[in-house]
């Protein structure tokens, strides 16, 4: 036991004395959250918009006020003709335009049906779609406010995503994704590199020749990175709650337990890599190519899996990050309990056991 403790203490010293490692361990999650949460988000703020109001009635004024009060749009009102509108689009000054026909409010009140023209700059289709979505949502809210629960003049079908993300926050998707990515990266890379480094130093030979059990060598390599990863998890969750305003809706205990399981999956993968490589560079490359890429591609937070060709969809099933991502989304965002994720947890558990088994079996008590 004493041996075990001093070994773990040594591992922590390695981590804390190497600024580069330290930066990677704790800088990475923060950078990732900031990058994905803010910079790469598909949320758009203060997009320039013009309004051509031919109606100038109560309805148009109220809706314009609503659009303007949202943080998504910044309205430049003073356009008077279609020609000016065209010019503004061409110069790229504005991204969207909303045109109110004459009698906007009158028609709405009396025929239950009115028209509203929305024009978007389609050069960037993603942005355009998002902006049009925002306008639709805001219009729908206005409708409800005016009409109460009566029949809507035009139907707005809310997307599934918006059901749990009424404000269309990008972070809702990214936080679970970043968790899957960072934990995978840190665990796989750190364990594999730290074991391979002992091989390069020649200390692995001494460790093997010592009475210290080989299994304990592995365990003492895994424990520090498990702890580091849990700290990382806490950092990510705190960041998402306090910086992104994204609460943990479900059980924190469940979230942490599932994350621990996922961390163990990643640790066994790191171990597996370390048994097959002899240099730190190879270990690093294998971790990056073998882990980071599939996790990014197949976890489902960057590219929707349901849009992929069938063979890729099948492949995505063997990526642990995919299951973890599903679980975290359900627990953290939808606030669901264990009953709704037990299937995914079982899959992840079986994967972990399999990986751990293989890597333990492959770990040699001798050199060759």
């Amino acid at each position, binding site marked *: 036991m004493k041996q075990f403790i001093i070994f773990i203490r040594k591992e922590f010293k390695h981590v804390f004395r*190497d600024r580069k490692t330290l930066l990677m361990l704790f800088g990475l999650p923060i950078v990732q959250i900031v990058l994905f949460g803010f910079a790469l988000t598909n949320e758009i703020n203060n997009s320039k918009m013009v309004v051509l109001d031919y109606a100038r009635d109560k309805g148009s004024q109220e809706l314009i006020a609503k659009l303007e009060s949202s943080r998504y749009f910044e309205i430049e009102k003073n356009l008077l003709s279609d020609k000016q509108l065209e010019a503004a689009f061409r110069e790229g000054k504005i991204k969207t335009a909303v045109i109110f026909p004459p009698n906007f409010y009158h028609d709405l009140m009396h025929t239950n049906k009115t028209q509203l023209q929305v024009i978007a700059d389609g050069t960037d289709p993603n942005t355009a779609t998002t902006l049009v979505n925002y306008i639709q949502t805001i219009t729908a809210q206005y409708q409800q406010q005016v009409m109460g629960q009566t029949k809507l003049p035009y139907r707005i079908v809310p997307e599934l995503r918006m059901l749990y993300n009424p404000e269309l926050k990008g972070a809702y998707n990214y936080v679970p994704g970043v968790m899957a990515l960072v934990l995978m990266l840190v665990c796989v890379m750190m364990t594999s590199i730290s074991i391979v480094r002992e091989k390069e*130093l020649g200390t692995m*030979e001494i460790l093997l020749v010592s009475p210290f059990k080989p299994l304990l060598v592995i365990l003492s390599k895994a424990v520090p990175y498990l702890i580091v990863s849990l700290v990382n998890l806490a950092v990510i969750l705190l960041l998402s709650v306090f910086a992104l305003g994204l609460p943990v809706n479900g059980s924190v205990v469940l979230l942490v337990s599932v994350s621990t399981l996922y961390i163990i999956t990643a640790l066994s993968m790191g171990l597996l890599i370390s048994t097959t490589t002899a240099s730190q560079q190879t270990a690093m490359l294998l971790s990056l190519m073998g882990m980071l890429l599939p996790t990014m591609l197949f976890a489902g937070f960057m590219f929707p899996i349901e849009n992929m060709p069938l063979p890729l969809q099948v492949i995505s099933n063997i990526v642990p990050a995919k299951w973890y991502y599903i679980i975290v989304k359900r627990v953290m965002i939808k606030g669901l309990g264990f009953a709704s994720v037990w299937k995914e947890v079982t899959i992840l558990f079986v994967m972990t056991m399999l990986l751990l088994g293989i890597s333990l079996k492959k770990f040699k008590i001798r050199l060759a």
Partner: protein
Amino acid sequence: MATVELHGLMKHYGKDKIPAVKDVSFSVKEGELFGLIGPDGAGKSSIFRMLTTLLLPDGGNATVAGYDIVKDYKAIRNRVGYMPGKFSLYQDLSVEENLNFFATLFNTTIQQNYELIKDIYVQIEPFKNRRAGKLSGGMKQKLALCCALIHKPEVLFLDEPTTGVDAVSRKEFWEMLKRLKQQGITILVSTPYMDEATLCDRIALIQNGEILTVDTPEQIVRNYPFPLYAIRSERITHLLRHLKAYENTRSCFAFGEYLHLTFKQPHEKAVASVTDYLTHEGHTGLECRQINPTVEDCFIQLMKTA
């Protein structure tokens, strides 16, 4: 009783089964300082790794402290100290932290076996808070030796401890080994430096995975089959060329400022004839005398017959 015993030990590597150790047998007595001497790639590290249970042999068998290196690997791991060739300790841990780590790993403390390492440790103690990565080559060597000794092993395996270390540090290192030997530890050490051979009780000369000879350095030197002459002149490079072309030359190699020469026909007039020949070739300041061979002479001679 032999502390280490090898019988026809073999090891080959890779798909092509390139042999690294071919049918090696020797034994090391208790308390002996035994040297395995040969160039890089001779198979020294492979033998050490098999004896420390890190590699499985492909043929033959061996015992260390009475235990079989395959079956009883756990027992051996408790009884040996090992310093691998490329061993460089944890660069980011301090001297004391390194030593403490290895002590705990072997279920002991620095205090418990302090007597054993005291001689060596006092030399590095002033730097005990310095990181191992910032030590000089000689200092690192001493620390590594302390780490290998800290659990008071019965047998100590040192794989090329002096490679790349300067002449002064090498001398100091061998003096430390002599003192350790007096404490009753059996020591196996490998080295590519032939001049270190005379510091061992017995040596095995090894080349291409084969043992050339096993004996005391004195006996190996005594077994050298020819009279050996040291010869020099004022133009040593030309001397070598002329002697290589000389009809009665069996072998001629540079050794420092002299050339070492053996004759095909070592008759009484051989020296006089060669001196005549060289004078005729224009050499001045000639000096030629019979000498005792060194282990290096023996190695070269054994290599050629092998």
